[in-house]
């Protein structure tokens, strides 16, 4: 098992190198003169020249790249122009907010989509099957920011069930002491039930938005792979041996059907991380997505670049995790390694 993990780590290395090269090229592709850009609109010619030397922009591209990698290795992503803070610091403090939202969204979506897909596959042509198909087609067609706004209108403005879409906590509450950065977990550790409920309330709508968005591919894949597995020989044998339908579906078919679903998770994460940016903007969620959007509006490039890099590294890591998970579910993958 460890051997397999190590092998997968090696496979991730070229991806990481590619990611670093692309993010480097993105900074150098800035329109106009990056030095003039970083110096600001009011800078003199000498100041621009000074910054050019300071940033190493007078050096050849290869030297610039080496310098960039060296800075990265030290965990230096530059400073934000608007706040003057190091980008790494900002991302560190904002990442838990995004992670809490994204993970909860995925959990909710999985816990709806997987049972839905299984039920649709075991009763083809039934009402559940049609519901699954409608959900799958509608889900991919809904712009995630639009779903979020509709939910806000219905559950905040019309029904008044949800709190105002303004961040992680109502202004009357102060955040729990920082341990994991996840308000749900931190408030439980602090034993503050009221705070837990308050942060959960803020989470419900954005989580639901992300869940609706990612429901479709998971449900579709679960249904398709469950249908294929249910038609296979070993399921027929299990049925013929007189095993209870529940045992056949849950013990025999489900585990095999989960393999393609786990594979699709990689794609689902790609969509989720992107959708996260839009959802954070709709719900004024103080995560790294809204950090990037704020930077975009202020034409502040260093935070944006840090954001793209962080997201890409997280995505590579997630794919790695999915591969390992795959090995856990399917022993054959482990044997091959």
């Amino acid at each position, binding site marked *: 098992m460890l051997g397999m993990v190590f092998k997968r780590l090696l496979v991730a290395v*070229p*991806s*990481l190198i*590619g*990611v670093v*090269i*692309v*993010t480097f090229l*993105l*900074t150098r*592709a*800035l*329109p106009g003169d990056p030095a003039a850009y970083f110096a600001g609109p009011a800078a003199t010619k000498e100041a621009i020249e000074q910054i050019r030397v300071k940033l190493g922009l007078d050096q050849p591209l290869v030297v610039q790249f080496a310098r960039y990698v060296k800075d990265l290795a030290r965990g230096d992503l530059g400073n934000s122009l608007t706040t003057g803070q190091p980008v790494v610091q900002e991302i560190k403090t904002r990442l838990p907010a995004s992670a809490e939202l994204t993970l909860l969204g995925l959990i909710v979506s999985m816990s709806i989509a997987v049972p839905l897909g299984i039920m649709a596959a075991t009763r083809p042509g039934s009402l559940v099957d049609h519901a699954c198909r409608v959900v799958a*087609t*509608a889900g*991919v*067609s*809904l*712009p*995630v*920011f*639009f779903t979020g*706004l*509709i939910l*806000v*209108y219905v559950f*905040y*403005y019309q029904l008044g069930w949800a709190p*105002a*879409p303004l961040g992680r906590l109502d202004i009357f509450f102060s955040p729990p002491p920082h341990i994991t950065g996840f308000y749900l977990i931190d408030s439980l550790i602090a034993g503050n039930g009221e705070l837990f409920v308050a942060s959960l309330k803020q989470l419900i709508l954005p989580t639901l938005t992300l869940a609706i968005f990612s429901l479709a591919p998971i449900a579709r894949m679960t249904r398709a792979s469950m249908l294929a597995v249910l038609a296979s020989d070993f399921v027929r044998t299990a049925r013929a041996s007189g095993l209870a339908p529940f045992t056949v579906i849950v013990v025999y078919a489900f585990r095999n059907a989960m393999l393609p679903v786990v594979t699709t998770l990689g794609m689902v*994460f*790609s*969509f*989720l*991380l*992107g*959708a996260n*940016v*839009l959802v954070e*903007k*709709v719900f004024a969620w103080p995560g790294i997505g809204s950090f*990037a*959007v704020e930077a*975009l*509006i202020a034409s502040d*490039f260093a935070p*944006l*670049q840090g*954001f*793209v890099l962080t*997201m*890409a590294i997280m*995505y*590579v890591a997630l794919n790695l995790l999915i591969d390992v998970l795959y090995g856990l579910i399917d022993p054959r993958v482990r044997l091959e390694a």
Partner: protein
Amino acid sequence: MTDIVATHRPSSGIAATLRHARYVVSENRVTGFAFGLFLVIVLAALIGPYVVPYDPLASNTTAALKPPSMQHWFGTDQLGRDVFARVIVATRLDFVIAVTSVALVFLMGGLAGVAAGFFGGWTDRVVGRVADTIMAFPLFVLAMGIVAAMGNTVQNIVIATAIVNFPLYARVARAEANVRREAGFVLAARLSGNSEVRIVLAHVLPNIMPIMIVQMSLTMGYAILNAAGLSFIGLGVRPPTAEWGIMVAEGAAFMVSGEWWIAFFPGAALMLAVFCFNLLGDGLRDIVDPQRRT
């Protein structure tokens, strides 16, 4: 190139395909509906700006934030602009962004993929590496980075959307070209003295066209969503231009105070367009590849 395709395919084949297409559209009501919707969208994109009752950019502060009525079907926004006129006029811009980005990625990804699948070797490795590197990013995030770096214009939104879709096209084209590498018609073309490049462009590429067209209509919905998402966060299209994504963004602030129509109608138009393209893609796939019918 086109005349070669025409002479290679007997005319009755085209008639048969058309008949089959008509059968699929009329038999599958959903595809028929999607096709009808598609025509409406194209019509709105073509003649929309000439038939709308109001100027989409003209503000009229005395009539600001009016709910939908007989006079203003979709209501008016915070500047008193008619939402219906803006939604209709925006169709052209959104449609053009989607179509050009899909055409661009078809050119880049399709050609690169076919070359990779047909020639193999280092071409294959280079294309595969580029596709893998793009896939290592969450796609929307990469698109954000590209537009921010290359400059905040509509043109760059088109390019960014094309780039993030590149791996999909390259992979499909590569797989399809790869299985045709040693196909009879390729060997025959080679024997009769065609150059390799000519074989790729005149024989292999037309052969995989149906599958690529299905791919195009399947990714068209995603292209619209991607472009609208980018303009929703303030990239590319600038106010006061009418575009669905930016209109939803402008209406977002009014959602919490109950003026739902400003964001709802452009959002619904966006949803309908994406829905239409997805259904149409599925329908086209049924025509081209009946085995994968769902």
